[in-house]
């Protein structure tokens, strides 16, 4: 019983954090729009191309994708085929859901592991962006890995939700 309560707390917190992370990603969409607009204005008025808009736009896109990943999972926004799944008995459906979610958990751990590897590599090799900003790449890449770790948390939450049969 105590275990079940702990699980419920984790689920609530995980859902909440994913919500915040999604909100941050949403704000980045707005910032992305503004930065690109400013870049075009500057280019038209002063005929200089800084390409900062391009570079920052790319970082923001990666941030939107990964910080939005756990939120999208919570909102059931990642698509799957349930045509065949629906034909199984309810009990078997649950087993299959657990199995595929478990596999997803392993994959997410691998993504986090190799994402971390990339950060370390960029940091030690001092990889920089080619633009005027010369951004050390490990900084935006860290945002990606933070997103993957949040995704890992939410995948774990979905797994526990199935396991403990917690209604949303």
């Amino acid at each position, binding site marked *: 019983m105590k275990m079940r309560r702990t699980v419920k707390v984790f689920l609530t917190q995980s859902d909440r954090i994913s919500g915040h992370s*999604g*909100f941050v*990603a*949403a*704000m980045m*969409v*707005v910032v*992305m*729009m503004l930065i*690109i*607009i400013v*870049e*075009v204005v500057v280019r038209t008025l002063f005929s200089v191309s800084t390409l900062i*808009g*391009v570079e920052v*736009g*790319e*970082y*923001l*896109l*990666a941030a*939107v*994708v*990964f910080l*939005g*990943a756990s*939120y*999208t*999972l919570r*909102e059931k*926004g*990642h*698509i*799957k*085929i*349930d*045509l*065949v*799944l629906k034909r199984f008995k309810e009990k078997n459906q649950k087993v*299959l*859901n657990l*199995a*595929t979610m478990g*596999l*997803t958990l392993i*994959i*997410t751990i*691998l*993504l986090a592991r*190799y*994402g*971390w*590897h*990339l*950060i370390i*590599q960029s940091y030690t090799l001092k990889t920089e962006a080619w633009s005027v900003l010369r951004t050390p790449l490990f900084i*935006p*890449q860290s945002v*990606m890995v933070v997103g993957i770790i949040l995704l890992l948390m939410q995948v774990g939450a979905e797994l526990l939700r199935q396991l403990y049969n917690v209604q949303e």
Partner: protein
Amino acid sequence: MSSTFVIAILTSLLIVLLVLGQHICFALATVGFVGLFFLLGGNAPRSSGLIMWHSAAHFVLVAVPMFIFMGEILTRIGLASRLYAGLGPMLGRLPGGLLISNIGSCAVFAAISGSSLATAATIGTVAIPTMEQRGYDRGMIVGSLAGGGTLGILIPPSIIMIIYGALASESVGRLFMGGVIPGVISAGLFMLYIMIRVRAQPHLVPREETAFKIVQLRRLFADVLPAFALIFMVLGSIYLGVTTPTEAAAWGAAGAILLGLGYRKLTWQIVKEGALSAVQTTSMILLIVIGASLISYVLANLAVPRQLATAVLSLGIGKLWILTLLVLLYLVLGCFLDGASIMILTLPVIMPLIRSLGFDGVWFGVILTILLEVALLTPPVGMNLYVLQKISKADFGQLILATIPYWLIDIALIALLTACPTLVLWLPGKMIG
């Protein structure tokens, strides 16, 4: 290891995972890692971090959230109902009445939103209740929406084309321009079909007896012109080479916000929900891109796409037969997957083949876009059919019958564009910059 063997293993694993209900993006990543660990081995899995990063931090794809954001804002400030109200009295006077204006509204809305489902669903929610009340045949209503929806990804901006451009290294601007003329032809053929059908069976539509009034003209200007202005601004700046499609998309989103302010409909809630919706779709699509690029990395390292292209070429069958086989392949895939997934999944393997057959990359992008739409409408299970059923509550059999003419027209269009590629390539060729 022979490439047939590799493809067979990875494909069957993917099918099993998808059928068992793993999320598409994670199923792709699972197969990708299986390939990285067991087919390539060694240090190969370590590349996955960099593959992930390069697939997501891609400037061309920045256009995806921008265009979705723009479409979401425009939908939420009620542009669809304004469009419908504005175009209805105009196009509704043609034989076929509001059915024609369904196609027209879809075509215009297609130039605002990047997806076929969004187009059909948005216009559908406005159109279906009014039209059923007036006594239009239900099959004809959903048919026209399904057909109109297919214009959604053909007429630019189109999310599918942006992804194609990014994956196949083709200019998104040229792809957008390539979709314009086929989109207009397609809309014209759909309208023609409705007119002929209604002439033969007049009982399918009620008599529309509204005379055109000057008030309606004023309304038309107020409701439709701002939307047209926005479309021309976005597409025009791409055509003139003033901005890249990504930059045009950002301006479009800003334009949508200004339009919302002008209509006094914009709230913080709308901006927030629009942005959140853009986050969801972007994250969903790009995680699929990432999963698929893990697989393509494996395949490319084993030289599978090149071997496949060589093998197909050595069979000595004609270009057109290979194209026909591809059409059949996509029709089958459309039973299981959504358009974006199908494209992301098949492109890395198909593209080398297409190029070695000597097809133009922009031309094939447009053909593939039409083909994906057809695939999503064809029975037994097209994904779009389900959405249309949900919003229209029509009987599934009725729905299938009603949509047949539209995808037959689209297949005829593919044949026409194959016979006459200039229809696709003329406008991109006229682009400035």
